[in-house]
C-alpha cells in the first residue's frame, strides 16, 4: 500500500492564516497555511455540525469553525478544550513552494 501524492498548487495561492479548498470526488479538503508558512490539510467538515473549517479563522496551529466556534487542531484534526471530536487529517507536505497532498491508496 503506497501513499498517492498529488500536487495541488503553490503555497502562494493561499493567504497566510487562511485556507483554500481542494475538491476530491465528493470530499472537500481544506488546506491551511499558518502565519509561519506551514501547511496542513483537514477534511473540510467540523466534527460538530459539519461546518466548513476552511472558512474559519486560523490561529496558532488551530482553526476556529465559523459556525459555532469549535477550535480544531490543524495538525491532528481533534477538537480543543472541552469539546470532543475529530476531523480527518490528511498528509500534506511542501516541495519548495509546491503543496503535495497525500491521498490514501488508490482503490
Amino acid at each position, binding site marked *: 500500500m503506497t501513499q*498517492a*501524492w*498529488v500536487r*495541488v*498548487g503553490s503555497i502562494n*495561492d*493561499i*493567504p*497566510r*492564516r*487562511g485556507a*483554500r*479548498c*481542494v*475538491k*476530491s*470526488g465528493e470530499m*472537500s479538503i481544506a*488546506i491551511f497555511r*499558518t*502565519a*509561519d508558512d506551514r501547511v496542513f490539510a483537514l477534511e473540510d467538515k467540523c466534527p460538530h*455540525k*459539519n*461546518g*466548513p473549517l476552511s*472558512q*474559519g*479563522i*486560523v*490561529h*496558532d496551529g*488551530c482553526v*476556529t469553525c*465559523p*459556525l459555532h*466556534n469549535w*477550535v480544531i487542531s490543524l495538525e491532528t484534526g481533534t477538537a480543543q478544550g472541552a469539546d470532543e471530536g475529530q476531523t480527518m487529517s490528511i498528509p500534506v507536505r511542501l516541495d519548495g513552494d509546491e503543496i503535495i497532498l497525500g*491521498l490514501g491508496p*488508490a*482503490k
Partner: protein
Amino acid sequence: MTEKQKLVVIGNGMAPGRMLEHLFETAPDAYDVTIFNAEPRVNYDRIMLSPVLSGEKSFEDIIIHGDGWYVDHGVMLYKGHKVVEIDREAKTVRSEHGEVAAYDKLVIATGSAPFIIPVPGHKLPGVLTYRDLDDVDAMLLAAQSRGKAVVIGGGLLGLEAAAGLKERGMDVTVIHLMPSLMERQLDPAAGYLLEQELVSRGIKVITKASTKQILGEARVEGIELEDGTIIPATLVVMAVGIRPSAALAKEAGLSVNRGIVVSDHMQTSDPDIYSVGECVEVNGNVYGLVAPLYQMAEVAAAHLSGDTGKRFVETSTATKLKVTGINLYSVGDFAEAEGREEIVLRDAAAGVYKRLVLKDNKILGVVLYGETADGAWFFDHLKKQIDISEMRESLIFGQAYQGGSPMDPMAAVAALPDDAEICGCNGVCKGKITTAITSKGLTGLDEVRAHTKASASCGTCTGLVEQLLALTLGDAYNPAAVTPMCGCTGLGHDDVRRLIKAKELKTIPAVMQELEWKTSCGCAKCRPALNYYLVCDWPDEYADDYQSRFINERVHANIQKDGTYSVVPRMWGGMTSSTELRAIADVVDKFDIPAVKCTGGQRIDMLGIKKEDLPAVWADLGKAGFVSGQAYAKGLRTVKTCVGTDWCRFGTQDSTGLGIKLEKFMWGSWTPAKLKLAVSGCPRNCAEATCKDIGVICVDSGYEIHFAGAAGLDIKGTEILGNVKTEDEVMEHVVALAQMYREQGRYLERIYKWAKRIGLDEIRDQIMQQHDKRKGYYERFVFSQKFAQVDPWSERVSGKDKHEFNPMATLSLEAAE
C-alpha cells in the same frame, strides 16, 4: 430658613475642588458658591498631566468635576476669568472681564507659577513650562515635528516631561544642574539607576549642567551651557520649580512671605479670607505635592462649615515618578548625618536598589528603586516610629520576610494594620477602605474611588486597593475591569484600546508585540477585536486584516448551517421599487436561489447561495444599483422606518426620508457589535424604534432620540437620550452617539451593555450637553466614513480576494502520481 452665605473661590485647581467636595458633603446648604478660574476649563487632575502628555490618558480621563458637577451643586463657575482685584472693604472681587462678585467668605487658591530661569532667550517662542493643559497641548504640537527637545530640570516634573516627549517621538535631552537626578528625593545611587534607565530609553541626560542662554532669533534653535556645549533644539521645556502665586493676595494687603501666610486653620491675616493650595505658606513651609494640599482642603472645608477642631499638621509624603515602567519610591530624610545608619540592598542584575536610613533603630528615610511594593509598609514604620531592632536582619527584604516564611502579596496586605496608609495622595488608610467596602456594599474599584478617593489621584496604589477588595469581599469580588480579552493576553479590552491609542499601535503584529501577547498570532476572539479597534482608531492608516475577520465579513454574506450563504442588498430606509424587485427576482432565478425572505429589518434575504456563486450574484445585484446590506456585520445594518407623513394619517414627520438619510450617511461603518436603527413617524411606533440600538420617534415638536434598546438575547426598551428640533440635529446627535459607542465599546458589546457600563447620564451629558464633545465625535465619524463607504460587493466583483471563492484544485483519482 437662614440666608445662605456667599462663598467666592479664586482658582479651580485640585485643592479648592477637594475643599468644595468636603464642604458640600458636610454643609450642603451653607453657601452660594462662585468660582473664578483663570484657566478656561473645569477642575482636572493636574498630577495626571504626564500620562496625557505620554498619550496613556486623554484630557477627558483626568477631569475631576465635569460641567454637570457644577450644575448639580448650583455653583457659578466663571471659566477663563482671572481675578485682578480683591476689595476687602467692600468684600468683593473683580475679574479681568469686569465681573464683580460679593463674598461673605473668600478662598484664595491661586496655586503657583512655574519658575522661569531668566537666561537670555527665555522669552523665545518654543520655550515652554510644564504646568497646565495648555502647556501639554503646546508640547504635543511641538512633538508632531519629531524634532529635538531639551528639558531643563531633572526633577519629578522635568523627567515626566522628558519621558512623555520621548514617547511622542522627540529626541530628548535632560539638563540638570545637580550631580544626580531628583536629588531632593533620591540618593545618588538611586539617581544613577534612574539615569541609566532613562538613557536606555534613548533619553540623553547631562548632569552638573548650567544653562547659559537659549539660542535662536525668531524662535528656539538650541541652548548653550556654561561650559560652551551647544545643544540644538526646537523645543525647550523649563521644569525647574514653582513659585506660589501670591501677588493678588499681597495687593489686597494680606500677609505674604514666600506664599500667602495662613494659620493652621487655613485662615489668612483677614479672618474672612482663607487660602489653600500651592499659593499657601503654613508654619513657614510651602507645598507642591498633592497630599498636603488635600489636607489643607479638608481643614478649610471643616472651618467653613463651622467645625474649628481640624488643624493642618505637617506629615511627610512619599514621592513617586509617574513614568510607565519606572518604579521609584522615596519618603523621609536620607541625608547623611551624625548617628545615622543605613541598610542598603543592591541587586544590579534585577535593577533593584533599596536604602533605609535609620536612627536609634527607627526608620527616618526610605528610597526604593525597581521594587517598590514595600513602600507603604516602610512608610508606616517611619510614621509610627516603630522600633525595628527585632527585625533588623530582615528589614530590608520587606514585610514578606517578617516572621516565618515569606508571605504572598495578599497576606502582606492582610497583615497591614488598619491605620496603614494605602493612598498617599488622598491620605486614605486601610481601615477606611475596608469599612467603606463593607458598610456601603462596594464591589468594584470605581466605587471605592468614588466613596473614599483612594487610588483616585495618581493611581499608583490601584493594586493595593484591588487586593483590599479581594480580601474584604473574598470570592464575591469580581474584578470586572481586568477580565482579559482572551487567553492570549492578561489585558482587558479597555486597556488594549487605551494602549493602542497611547502607543500609536497601527497593526495587529505591533499590538501583539508591544502588549506582550502570549500566543504567536492571537485567536479567533482577539484578532477580530483588535482588527476592529485598529479600523476604528486609525481609519486612514490601518489596512483591514482580512484574515482576522469572521467569515461573514470576509465574504460579505451570511454563512448558514449548511455552509451556503445568504445575501441581503440594501434597501434604503426599507423603500424599494419594481425595478429593484425585478432585479432581485432575476438573480433568484438565474442562480437558482432556494429561499427568499423578508428580514425583521425590512430587507430581502436570499438564502442558500453557494460560495462560488457569490461574486456573480453580487455582480448582478450591483448592476441593478444595489450595495451590500451588511446584514451579517458588526456594523450598521438597517434603519427601519414607517411611512410617516407621506402616507400615514398620524405621521408627524417624514420618518421614511429621515431613515433613508441616516442609512445613506452611516452605511459601511463598523461598530463593536451590530447596530440597528429605526425611525417611527409618531408615538404609535410602527417601526418599533423603542427596542433598537438607536431609535428616533417623531413627535409634533420635533424628534425624540432613543438608544440602548435590545430585542435579542435580552429584551429591553430604549432609554431616552433627548429631544431635538430638526432633522439636521437628529443626524448630528445620532451620529455622535454612534461614534462615542464606536470609540468606547468593547468588541461584541452591544450598545445597551456599553451604555449600562458607561452610565446613561454620562452619555446624555456628553451628547446632549457638551456641544464641543458632540461635534468632535461627529467629525471623527465623518472622517472615518471617507474610508468606510466602499461597497464590498463591487470590490469583490473587481477581483479583490478572488482566491477566496474558487477551489484551489479539483482532483480526479487519475491525477494521482
